[in-house]
């Protein structure tokens, strides 16, 4: 009986996404592989991440594909009533430090202006990257999901930070000294993280918290059809399409969730 | 006039509160208007005329006092009852207050919209009223396309649609030119005579009162300072203000000032002011005295006319002849009920 109802519901899965992920899922929805698996996918663009997660948690959106693990963790921590569950990993993409004026991180002068995202997880991730590049030092207990520019312990270069809507990153590139841009946004702005950034995240164990995931409402955690989306994403032909289109900047991560959790 | 009361205002006061001060717009006014009368209310701007008549249909709630309409105390009615009573009191305004979104016919139909009659019956009635006011061919026009006088005719037709018993006209002719004013007044007179509707008419022009009203009340600073039949008010105004109004209608004072300025003094000449009321004017006074006493009478100013059916005349003339004869004549005139005043030549005002 329950299986039955799940099958009828499986008729169409609404995937909420944004940016380049939205484009990828539009491709997936039309792919032969999706048909083969008997999945009907509808993709919806929601540009406000909070709304997208809320809508997913209360069931208006079945599955969403836009957030990193840290963003997901932060949401579940802050949201009192509606909780999400992760379905599986998709890819990891490096965030980069981009600049039109300077070739190397060490060229960035004292008092330079750095644009960072105004949403919490992207900002925290950016700050960690800046620390890695040796530009700043963060407080000991820095929260990788919710930490903000207030949690900078030392800022020897007296860098100035401008908080912007992260999607405008490529637009402001030529007016500030440096911008932190996530790859989803960078790709939209025709920026290639491996060649255009002056510094970027390594894709390894140390940055595994930044792996992107598919998420659904907690109550749908075990929905078989939703789980098939994870499999579908990692299909060869789909991966080839993504690799070609995004120059391999979206590094495929097909690991169990336990890989990040631990 | 049947003697039956149509409207009785009893000790009406209206007070307006504005910021810090309060204005006594109407103060303890008693006013009774008989069925079938045409009752004028005159006064300068701000006297409280509009406020007073707006009390009649309770568009303005009085601060104190009673409004009796026919036999009903309007203050005792509930909202629906008051609305019903209001339908018996038509009102026309200085600025017509027609609805520009409706045709002429639509405007006249408006008061009938709530009634349970067919659309045809309603339109029929409105058309009949438009015919009465001479605007049948304008039924489909919009108010914007009409002249001031035509708009006021539509407003009158609209006010008559509910078969009212009373028609209140608040300066209905003040925005119109004199010719149009006359035609509107003639229409009101016709409505009064043909349909027997009582009319209350506000104005600040004495000519309007003299040409149509039977009774008049003079208002000043919220009070009625004088009232009575129009003829009586014209003949013997008691208050300075009333006299002023009468004078502007007759031009007497202005003429007098001019004549006094130009007059030359002479032994055999006396400047005399005469006021006739009623039948005396019919009795060929001038011709008979000039013949009987062999006097030359040189008329410098005359205004003899009928007001509400009564002849009223003002005359300023040089009486030329022996002084003793002239004085005898004046006594004779006084005896005939004519007001006589010998004007000496002192510059300045002469109190008539």
């Amino acid at each position, binding site marked *: 009986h329950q299986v039955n109802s799940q099958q009828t519901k499986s008729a169409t899965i609404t995937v*909420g996404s944004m940016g380049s992920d939205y484009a990828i899922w539009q491709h997936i929805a039309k792919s032969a592989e999706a048909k083969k698996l008997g999945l009907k996918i509808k993709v919806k663009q929601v540009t406000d991440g909070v*709304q997208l997660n809320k809508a997913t948690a209360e069931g208006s959106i079945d599955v969403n594909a836009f957030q990193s693990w840290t963003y997901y963790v932060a949401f579940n921590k802050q949201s009192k009533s509606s909780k999400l569950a992760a379905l599986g990993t998709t890819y990891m993409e490096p965030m980069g430090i981009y600049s039109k004026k300077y070739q190397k991180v060490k060229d960035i002068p004292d008092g330079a202006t750095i644009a960072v995202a105004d949403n919490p997880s992207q900002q925290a991730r950016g700050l960690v990257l800046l620390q890695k590049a040796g530009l700043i030092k963060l407080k000991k207990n820095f929260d990788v999901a919710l930490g903000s520019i207030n949690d900078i312990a030392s800022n020897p270069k007296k860098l100035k930070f401008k908080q912007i809507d992260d999607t405008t990153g490529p637009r402001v590139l030529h007016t500030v000294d440096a911008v932190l841009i996530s790859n989803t946004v960078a790709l939209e702005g025709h920026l290639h993280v491996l060649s255009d950034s002056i510094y970027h995240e390594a894709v390894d164990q140390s940055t595994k918290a930044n792996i992107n995931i598919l998420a659904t409402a907690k109550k749908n955690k075990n929905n078989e059809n939703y789980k098939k989306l994870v499999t579908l994403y990692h299909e060869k032909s789909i991966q080839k399409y993504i690799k070609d289109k995004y120059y391999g900047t979206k590094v495929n991560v097909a690991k169990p969730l336990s890989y990040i959790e631990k | 006039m049947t003697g039956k009361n149509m409207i009785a205002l009893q000790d009406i006061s209206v007070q307006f509160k504005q910021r810090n001060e309060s204005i006594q717009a109407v103060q303890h006014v008693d006013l009774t208007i008989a069925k079938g009368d045409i009752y004028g209310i005159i006064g300068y701007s701000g006297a409280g005329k509009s406020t007073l008549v707006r009390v009649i249909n309770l568009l303005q709630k009085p601060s104190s006092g009673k409004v009796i309409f026919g036999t009903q105390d309007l203050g005792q009615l509930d909202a629906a009852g008051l609305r019903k009573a209001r339908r018996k009191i038509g009102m026309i305004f200085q600025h017509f207050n027609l609805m520009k979104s409706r045709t002429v016919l639509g405007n006249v139909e408006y*008061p009938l919209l*709530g009634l349970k009659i067919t659309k045809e019956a309603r339109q029929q009635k409105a058309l009949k009223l438009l015919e009465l006011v001479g605007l049948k061919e304008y039924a489909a026009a919009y108010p914007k396309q009409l002249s001031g006088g035509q708009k006021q005719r539509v407003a009158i037709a609209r006010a008559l649609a509910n078969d009212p018993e009373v028609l209140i006209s608040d300066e209905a002719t003040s925005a119109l030119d004199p010719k149009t004013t006359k035609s509107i007044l003639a229409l009101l007179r016709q409505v009064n005579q043909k349909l027997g509707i009582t009319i209350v008419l506000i104005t600040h022009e004495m000519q309007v009162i003299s040409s149509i009203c039977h009774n008049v009340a003079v208002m000043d600073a919220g009070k009625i300072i004088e009232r009575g039949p129009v003829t009586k008010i014209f003949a013997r105004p008691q208050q300075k203000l009333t006299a002023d109004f009468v004078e502007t209608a007759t031009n007497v004072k202005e003429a007098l000032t001019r004549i006094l300025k130009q007059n030359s003094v002479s032994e055999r000449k006396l400047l005399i002011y005469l006021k006739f009321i009623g039948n005396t004017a019919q009795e060929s006074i001038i011709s008979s005295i000039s013949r009987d006493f062999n006097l030359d009478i040189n008329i410098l100013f005359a205004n003899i006319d009928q007001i509400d059916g009564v002849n009223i005349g003002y005359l300023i003339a040089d009486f030329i002849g022996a002084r003793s004869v002239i004085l005898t004549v004046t006594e004779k005139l006084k005896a005939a009920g004519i007001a006589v005043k010998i004007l000496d030549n002192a510059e300045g005002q002469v109190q008539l």
Partner: protein
Amino acid sequence: MANLIPNVLQMKAEFVQAIWETLYMTFAAAIVAAILGLLLGVALVVTQAGGILEDRLLYSLFDKVTNLLRSIPFIILLAVISPLTLFLVGTTVGTTASLVPLVIGIFPFYARQVQNALLDVDQGVIEAAQAMGSSPTEIIFRVYLREGLPDIIRVSTLTIISLIGLTTMAGAIGAGGLGDVAISIGYARFENDVTFAAMIIILIFVFTFQLIGDRLAKVFEH
């Protein structure tokens, strides 16, 4: 052509859908906002000092609520209204969900405009209707709304244009529409022709509504 608007040509389907979304949001929100706005606008006019149902307390309440709702910036409204949206339409994202913030964002503005329009109805005509024994309801429907119609049409035009402006922000909650195309595709991808094309279509809508409104107002202005 293909050189001038290379991206637009590839996106015909998206544009068609965005146009429908924008029109749907605009009309659906306009209908609900019109009803609420007319109700509130009329309520403001009749209860205010000198109105036909003068009521200081009620007026002050309506007035304050209107001001309050008007002071909430739409972008914040869009963010915080979701519990109400969920309650009313059962979802917080998508075109239909956007109707709730759109209506709440626009109807107090419309109510104010309606109030101003009705205040222009000649007070003398209202008084004449009262003198003829019309009830408050009759005066509202047969006088205020009818005499004020040309002005109401004018403010409706103005409001619907503001509403189109609001719909362009509704992409944040997945409502799509031309604003979303202009920003999340045209702007984010540097596909300037897409932004430009979306803006042109919005402008066409705006000018069309303006034209229709002006014509209609003239028809009802006798």
